[in-house]
């Protein structure tokens, strides 16, 4: 277990800047989720930590030791890939043994057996140990892949969208499993996703990346409740935060260009009229699609609402966010 510290990481591929001066500390024993759309630099950051790529400038240190010049094998990290996660020519057991048999670890055979057995037990794949890796379903493959990371006790676990190729049910099961494994082992985990539910449910800290820049780093709650920009606010929350002209509801702070409203920032039944265009019953809640002064707003209301399309509902902002012309938060 160790702290991971990134200082001024910059990396370009040709003309593309993949990482732009990333500085971040992943505390020991934390579960850090890197959040951002495709191309934001999430995977590149993981690759810098793993040693598969080296930064143009800046440094990576793990457990206080500078990693410059260290090979991936020397860094004592493990990585779960999004796909192609298992060695297709090996059985499940051989896949799980593979890291333990490496020249760096050289684990004795009885210990290999014990560890593989334990991990197989946790991930419920004991009965599949002697199957060929390619004979597994997608969910089983990904479980084995996570298992291959767990058989070692590395300083840092790196996971690159490990659940993205799975169906919804399995994804939520594995989410719970991963979180409890991390919590029980006290492992440091750096996890890449663009799924905000994964970020909200598992992370102790979230790093929001935009175009190679780290725009905000904090607990999921901090980022949800106190986003630094339109971009950060848009990463979390469902339905998404509504971004509207700042003076739509009345006077706004002088620098403000836009107002950001999450559903909980919209008080219903008070204020000005808006038109309900669509009502979506999701079971536990209902989504309302409104039009207010020619602007569309999406919010939620209680599950058994009587509202229908064409109805009028009064709304009023309550503690909204204000952003300036560049998208930065001003209030």
């Amino acid at each position: 277990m160790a702290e991971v510290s990134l200082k001024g990481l910059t990396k370009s591929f040709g003309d593309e800047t993949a990482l732009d001066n990333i500085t971040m500390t992943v505390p020991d024993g934390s579960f850090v989720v890197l959040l951002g759309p495709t191309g934001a630099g999430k995977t590149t950051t993981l690759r810098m930590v793993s040693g598969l790529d080296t930064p143009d400038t800046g440094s990576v240190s793990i457990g206080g030791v500078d990693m410059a010049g260290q090979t991936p094998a020397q860094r004592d990290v493990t990585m779960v890939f999004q796909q192609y996660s298992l060695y297709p020519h090996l059985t499940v057991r051989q896949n799980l043994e593979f890291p333990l048999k490496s020249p760096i670890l050289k684990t004795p055979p009885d210990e290999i057996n014990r560890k593989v057995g334990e991990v197989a037990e946790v991930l419920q794949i004991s009965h599949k140990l002697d199957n060929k890796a390619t004979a597994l379903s997608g969910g089983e493959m990904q479980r084995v892949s996570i298992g291959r990371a767990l058989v070692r006790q590395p300083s840092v676990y790196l996971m690159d969208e490990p659940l993205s190729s799975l169906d919804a049910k399995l994804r939520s099961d594995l989410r719970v499993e991963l979180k409890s494994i991390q919590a029980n082992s006290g492992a440091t985990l750096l996890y890449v996703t663009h799924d905000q539910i994964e970020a909200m449910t598992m992370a102790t800290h979230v790093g929001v990346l935009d175009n190679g820049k780290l725009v905000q780093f904090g607990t999921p709650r901090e980022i949800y409740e106190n986003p630094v920009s339109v971009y950060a606010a848009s990463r979390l929350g469902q339905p998404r935060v509504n971004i509207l002209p700042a003076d739509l509801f009345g006077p706004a702070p002088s620098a403000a260009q836009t107002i950001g409203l999450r559903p909980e920032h919209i008080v219903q039944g008070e204020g000005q009229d808006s038109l309900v265009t669509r009502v979506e019953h999701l079971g536990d809640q209902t989504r309302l699609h409104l039009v207010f002064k020619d602007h569309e707003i999406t919010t939620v209301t209680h599950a058994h609402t009587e509202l229908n399309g064409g109805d009028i509902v009064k709304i009023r902002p309550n503690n909204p966010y204000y952003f300036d012309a560049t998208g930065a938060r001003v209030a």
Partner: protein
Amino acid sequence: MSFSVTEPNKSTKWFAGLLVVTYAVVTIIPLLWIIATGFKSPADSISYPPVVVFEPTLEGYVNLFTDRTRATDDMLEAAGPPQTWYDEIARKRGTIISGPSRYGERFLNSVIIGFGSTFLCMVLGTAAAYAFSRFRVPLKDDLLFFILSTRMMPPIAVAIPIFLMFRNLGLNDTHLGMILLYTAVNLSLSVWLLKGFIDEIPIEYEEAALIDGYTRFQAFYKVVLPQAATGIASTAIFCLIFAWNEYAFAVLLTSGTAQTAPPFIPNIIGVNGKDWPAVAAGATIFLVPVMVFTVLLRKHLLRGITFGAVRK
């Protein structure tokens, strides 16, 4: 992969089957004919109309593997009764076996040179293909084109410079010379084929192995190589078939020590009149190693030939 939606009807299947069987028969007949000729007597081998049913004899094989001298009755008398079954066959024709022929040696040369160059070609080819596939090589595209361009003319076009080079280097009529030559000729195609196969192996596997605590070479050896086995096997077959069948360079550059079977087989024709059964026997035996090699690796070969036809 795509499949046609409608099942072909019965008559279409029959027609297709018939076509395939006919084609197979047409292509296999010459092969069967040469195998059969190896077991015919010299008279049967040239009879017209050709005989299909004949009394098999090993005379062709005996003639292939032995040198014989024509003997007078006195000499036959002096030699005493035949000691072995092949001695007996030779006596019937009024000859005495004077020793083994060169065919065994030549055949062994073919094996050494064919398999040796194939092995060397696979080692060098896989390494080069891996580098081209995975590393940032300066001028990669130009180099690859240059490598392929060496295959654009028939190799025999450079026969004379190669002959002179070999003479100066003392490589004429040596196993090493022939192995190097066949390796050089085969390497370009091998690099291209193997690069295609290695390109298809996702780089994530190696990266996973690097993180799992292995060095780049170990990752190559333990992860890439097993997955490239199919490609390597089918490329090896192509290389072996070329080296095995090669005739022109073998005639030009070998005459004794390192002579392979292809230039030797025609020699048989001239020794004691036109001995077609012996030639056929030589050709039949010559077929065996490539056939065995190909049959052993046939699954890979099929995949190798259809490679590139289906893109994911």
